[in-house]
């Protein structure tokens, strides 16, 4: 329980209307998009400017109240579930200004609560391009994207959020403003703290302003769908395309189970009797696009695609991406609970990973549909279940354990884009090493001695 006087202090910083005290209000910040037990925060505070944000952080630290910063709460790993010991949720949606879009020098300065899609649209209005496009972009925030190092459909060619962070200002746990990086393309002044902050999930500092790199948009693009009667052939095609030195902006995979659900829901005309499909888009200069598309088609033919459909126009292209975008929605409609995982392997290991996932589904008698960013080895095996059926859910948990074991044995990683949060911290040592954990813990201890900044995330056990 927080004392009345402390609540008053928060109110004096951000105003009465920006401190939420009632049970009903607090309860709505007790969860995020991960399937985990909710924890009701002791208080929810919404700063509306930098000064308030710094003061809120300092006050939490003084009073030993753990801080969990929350953007849109769409992370899939429990990153915004507050701490049980009178944890305080700090909202960033009051800090949602685009401070600068510099068309000449191709960068923008934003507050952390700016919604990703809104930012991309503002940038596009000026003829520029911000490539990271997580599936949640209609609601997720740039602060949340940086803290999770979010990826998206265009990750293969354009990289992930961290590749666009040129610098930032963040508050340390004492509420002091730390600056790192700059508005210049090159900057080697000091440690790359912005790099450290990307994927730090709110455990090392609270972002105040972020400097993001922009690029000119591609002049042309071409999209196609390739159908395979064998998952292995689909994966060989992925490797073949990369080996032919074509880097598509998007190279997506969907297995048969997944296709069936998508087709049930969208009636998009997917080849549900085939084993898998690849959805591919190349973009860039028109001449380059034509050239690369030709190469891709050749590789697909050689690796045994049974059918290749090249989108003739924008409408056909939209239809292809709609099928892909509907993968999660369709799966989500199949059963009450959807556990979306994020196992990522070196590209050449995709066939092994897909085969293992299918075996695991059989072994534990559960339904799994798999889709994902095959181009960067990032698969989303999605388990369809009912969390209220405890017996089934235990099997799901065991299956998830095994999926990660397989991913690690294939020299893969626990998370390609969804972060570690609370959900996966127990596997951290397995993927890295005891020394890595200790190094990270020491760093965290030096930065945040009282373990106030989003405790329990990434490196648990403190």
């Amino acid at each position: 329980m927080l004392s009345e006087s402390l609540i008053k202090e928060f109110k004096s910083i951000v105003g009465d209307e920006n401190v939420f005290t009632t049970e009903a209000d607090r309860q709505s910040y007790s969860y995020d998009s991960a399937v985990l037990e909710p924890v009701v925060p002791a208080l929810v505070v919404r700063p509306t400017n930098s000064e308030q944000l710094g003061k809120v952080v300092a006050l939490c630290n003084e009073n030993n109240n753990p801080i969990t910063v929350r953007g849109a709460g769409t992370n899939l790993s429990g990153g915004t579930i507050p701490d049980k010991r009178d944890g305080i949720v700090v909202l960033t949606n009051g800090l949602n200004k685009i401070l600068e879009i510099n068309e000449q020098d191709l960068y923008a300065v934003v507050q952390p609560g700016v919604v990703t899609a809104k930012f991309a649209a503002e940038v596009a209005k000026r003829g520029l391009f911000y490539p990271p496009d997580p599936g949640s972009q209609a609601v997720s925030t740039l602060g949340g994207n940086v803290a999770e190092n979010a990826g998206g459909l265009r990750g293969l060619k354009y990289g992930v959020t961290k590749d666009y962070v040129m610098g930032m200002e963040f508050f340390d746990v004492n509420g002091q403003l730390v600056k790192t990086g700059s508005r210049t393309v090159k900057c080697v002044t000091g440690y790359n703290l912005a790099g450290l902050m990307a994927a730090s999930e709110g455990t090392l500092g609270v972002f105040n302003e972020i400097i993001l790199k922009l690029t000119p948009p591609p002049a042309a693009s071409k999209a196609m769908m390739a159908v395979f009667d064998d998952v292995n052939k689909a994966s060989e095609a992925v490797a073949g395309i990369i080996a032919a030195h074509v880097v598509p902006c998007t190279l997506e995979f969907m297995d048969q189970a997944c296709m069936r659900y998508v087709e049930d829901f969208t009636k998009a005309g997917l080849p549900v009797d085939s084993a898998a499909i690849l959805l591919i888009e190349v973009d860039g200069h028109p001449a380059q696009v034509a050239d690369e598309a030709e190469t891709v088609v050749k590789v697909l033919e050689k690796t045994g695609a049974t059918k290749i459909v090249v989108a003739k126009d924008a409408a056909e292209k939209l239809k292809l991406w709609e099928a892909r975008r509907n993968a999660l929605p369709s799966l989500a409609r199949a059963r009450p609970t959807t556990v979306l995982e994020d196992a990522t392997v070196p590209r050449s290991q995709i066939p092994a990973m897909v085969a293992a996932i299918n075996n695991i589904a059989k072994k534990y008698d559960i339904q799994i549909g798999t889709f994902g960013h095959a181009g960067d080895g990032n698969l989303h095996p999605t388990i369809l279940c009912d969390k209220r059926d405890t017996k089934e859910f235990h099997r799901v948990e065991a299956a998830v354990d095994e999926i990660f074991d397989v991913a690690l044995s294939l020299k893969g990683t626990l998370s390609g884009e969804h972060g570690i949060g609370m959900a996966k911290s127990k596997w951290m040592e397995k993927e890295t090493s005891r020394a890595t954990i200790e190094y990270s813990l020491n760093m965290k201890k030096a930065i945040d001695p009282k373990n106030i900044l989003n405790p329990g995330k990434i490196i648990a056990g403190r």
Partner: protein
Amino acid sequence: MADLNKLAKMLQELDDMMVACMKCGMCQAVCPVFTETMKEADVTRGKIALLENLAHEMIRDADGVQERLNRCLLCGSCAANCPSGVKVMDIFLRGRTIVNTYMGLSPVKKAILRGMVGNPKLFNMLLDVGSKFQGIFTSQANELLGSSCSKFLSPIIGDRHFSPLAKQSLHSKYGTIDIPTGKSGIRVLFFPGCVADKMYTKAGEACLKVFRHHGVGVWMPAAQACCGIPALSAGDRVAYDKMVKFNVNIFADGDYDYIVAPCGSCISTIHELWPQFAGEYPEDLRNKIDRIAAKAMDINKFVVDVLGVKPAEAPKGGTKVTFHDSCHLKKSLGVATQPRDLIRMNPNYELVEMNEADRCCGCGGTFNLYHYDLSKKIGERKRENIVASEAKIVSTGCPACMMQMTDMLSQHNDSVAVKHSIEIYAETL
């Protein structure tokens, strides 16, 4: 004290529906209330979290639960955009009923819903009398919009600008209408709905003109109750059941092919909610409801899809009209192209699209009464989009939206008129 067994059963049903929510938060992108307040408790995901603890919460803070559940327009934008296909409207309506069953309805709501709206004869009489005396209390606000505002400080009306009650309501002018089928071979049950019957009678008259022109037989029983949505959204099952049964008793015996209304809300209520909330009725009544519900169709869809009216070419250069998609019409019933087709039928007008044409206007029925400030903020955005389109007329397919847009435009003294899409089409006949 509420029947605890019944409550427990209702809670269980609610739980079964809510488990589909994967807490992805995508509803934040489209919720008009969340856009204004940016509070998670004001968006579907937060409300579902609250409802998941309902039994527990009701005992601790029933008022708080009720207050939060009511901060929702029931616009259906979230449901239309939900990846998991969560039946949000159903959940919220059931949630409200549970909380009200637990708490009991406030005496004022009881008086309004059960005494007045639930008693069509009394309701009609009061409003007929009201229409005669309204001039004493109101003065004209905007001539083009025909809107009025209150002369005196009034807690119910506040600073709203509203359309006055019609001098003569449709039912008092026509009583029962019973016209046999003409050249179309089709006969409809005409359900004007409360607002078109008593306020926007021009929309109702336009429907009758369209029926006449196309040789559509019409049956309009003089006695019709409200469709029930105000009671259901207030969580008052007693009043709701009364309204539905009143209507079903009359409608079940008629000879007609479609039930047509110039109101998206009435039609979506009859078409979707009547069967959805018929679970506990006797089988005979349920069957009647299913048959009636299957025939319910919005007027725009009826004229375009059933009568086959379609524009050959869109006219250019006339008075600019922009179209607002009412939530119930577009998001619940999927009717969006038909009213636009009807506007294009009129060579005197040119249809121009506004930004965010399908964004809720903020009326939300009783939401407008209890959360006028929020309703107004959402309405302001609609008004800005209307004005920016440079249209001289804003058209829509739902009288409730007409009320809200009239209020917003009139408060800014804009010279933009509000018309139902069927009026625009009827002008050509």
